[in-house]
């Protein structure tokens, strides 16, 4: 009786230890992988054709979803914001509300989440399938480094695309808010743009938003290429790796957003 409990207890401890070691080992492997990818940066830009192709796949092909979502997010933000602001007679601050929320938070974060599910998952699936069909091993046999040939261009393609997509998202959002606020609700366009311009600061709001989107782009791209590279070379393995990419990227974006916001906007007096 007593020995059975003791065995069960040791087993549980052993499982916990096993899991912790595996998690830490994976983290270490991911860090080494990240360093190796960044070290292959010259390769990604030396063969620019490969990186351009990846900008096309993760950036250009994400344009439609980013533009349409940005437009709708801006329009909804304007409707909801107007509903609250007009209770205080401050409906002319609608432009400020929409522009600040888009440029500081929603642009980088929502564009990042869309980017993770649209482009990140595709990158993981592609690299995972390359591994499952032994294309990566074949490259190594031909003395071609898959990190330089496959992984680094995808990583940099994502990092370059992400800030541009976030800026487009914010721009479409402001445009959507303009359509709803000025055209539909009939706020004075001078007050809409003027208040917005007076309140949105280039250095504090726009540059910080761009920094956020670059950080999110790096996080999402790195997670996507790592999960693809680390996927079990089976159909199941690729599918679970793709899921992990979307889940981990989304969590990483939201957590990083909190950390960055604390450092960027604390003590600003706003």
């Amino acid at each position, binding site marked *: 009786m007593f020995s059975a409990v003791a065995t069960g207890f040791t087993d549980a401890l052993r499982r916990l230890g096993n899991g912790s070691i595996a998690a830490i080992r994976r983290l270490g492997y991911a860090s080494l992988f990240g360093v190796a990818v960044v070290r292959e940066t010259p390769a990604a830009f030396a063969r620019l054709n490969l990186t351009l192709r990846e900008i096309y796949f993760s*950036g250009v092909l994400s344009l439609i979803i980013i533009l349409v979502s940005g437009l709708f997010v801006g329009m909804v933000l304007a409707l909801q914001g107007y509903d609250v602001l007009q209770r205080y007679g401050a409906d002319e601050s609608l432009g400020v509300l929409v522009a600040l929320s888009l440029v500081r938070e929603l642009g980088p974060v929502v564009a990042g989440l869309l980017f993770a599910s649209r482009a990140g998952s595709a990158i993981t699936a592609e690299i995972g399938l390359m591994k499952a069909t032994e294309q990566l091993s074949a490259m190594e046999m031909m003395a071609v480094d898959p990190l330089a040939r496959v992984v680094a261009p995808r990583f940099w393609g994502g990092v370059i695309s992400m*800030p541009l997509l976030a800026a487009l998202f914010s721009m479409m959002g402001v445009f959507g808010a303009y359509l709803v606020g000025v055209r539909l609700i009939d706020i004075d366009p001078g007050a809409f743009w003027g208040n917005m*311009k007076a309140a*949105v600061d280039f250095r504090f709001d*726009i540059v910080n938003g761009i920094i956020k989107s670059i950080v999110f782009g790096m996080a999402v791209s790195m997670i996507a290429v790592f999960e693809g590279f680390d996927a079990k070379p089976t159909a199941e393995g690729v599918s679970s790796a793709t899921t992990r990419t979307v889940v981990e990227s989304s969590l990483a974006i939201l957590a990083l957003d909190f950390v960055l916001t604390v450092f960027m906007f604390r003590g600003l007096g706003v």
Partner: protein
Amino acid sequence: MNLSRSTLDLWVGTFVAIGLGAILFLALKVGNLVSFGSVPGYRIEARFDNIGGLKVRAPAKAAGVVVGRVERIRLDPATYQAVVTIKIDHGFQFTTDTIASILTSGLLGEVYIGLDAGGDAKMLPDGGTLAKTQSAVILEKLIGQFLVDKAASGGGK
């Protein structure tokens, strides 16, 4: 997916161009890139007994026109006065007897510094201090004052 190099270049070029265009739009149309940072200017100081809700980056206006921004707010430990450093844009000069007052645009609007130039011939130099200031109006104090006055006049009846 077989894309020819020129089609690929065209798409990526278009994408990068409109992306950079969006950043430019945000900087110029949504933000205030033109009126921030790059403008050279000089600094003046003003001492207030109470600055109310004034914050760093609040505008300084003369006749309603933005002429500068609050750069720094600190407390003078000797006099317990708030010392506000205002950066005035290059090109605007103010007389030494300019009155600085802390105002609010509308009931819920932003707090700003209003500058009313006087008739003195001398202009404030870089780092100069405004002698005449008017502190912020604190609504609670006004109400308190009103209640005290009311009680005093009521008691006299």
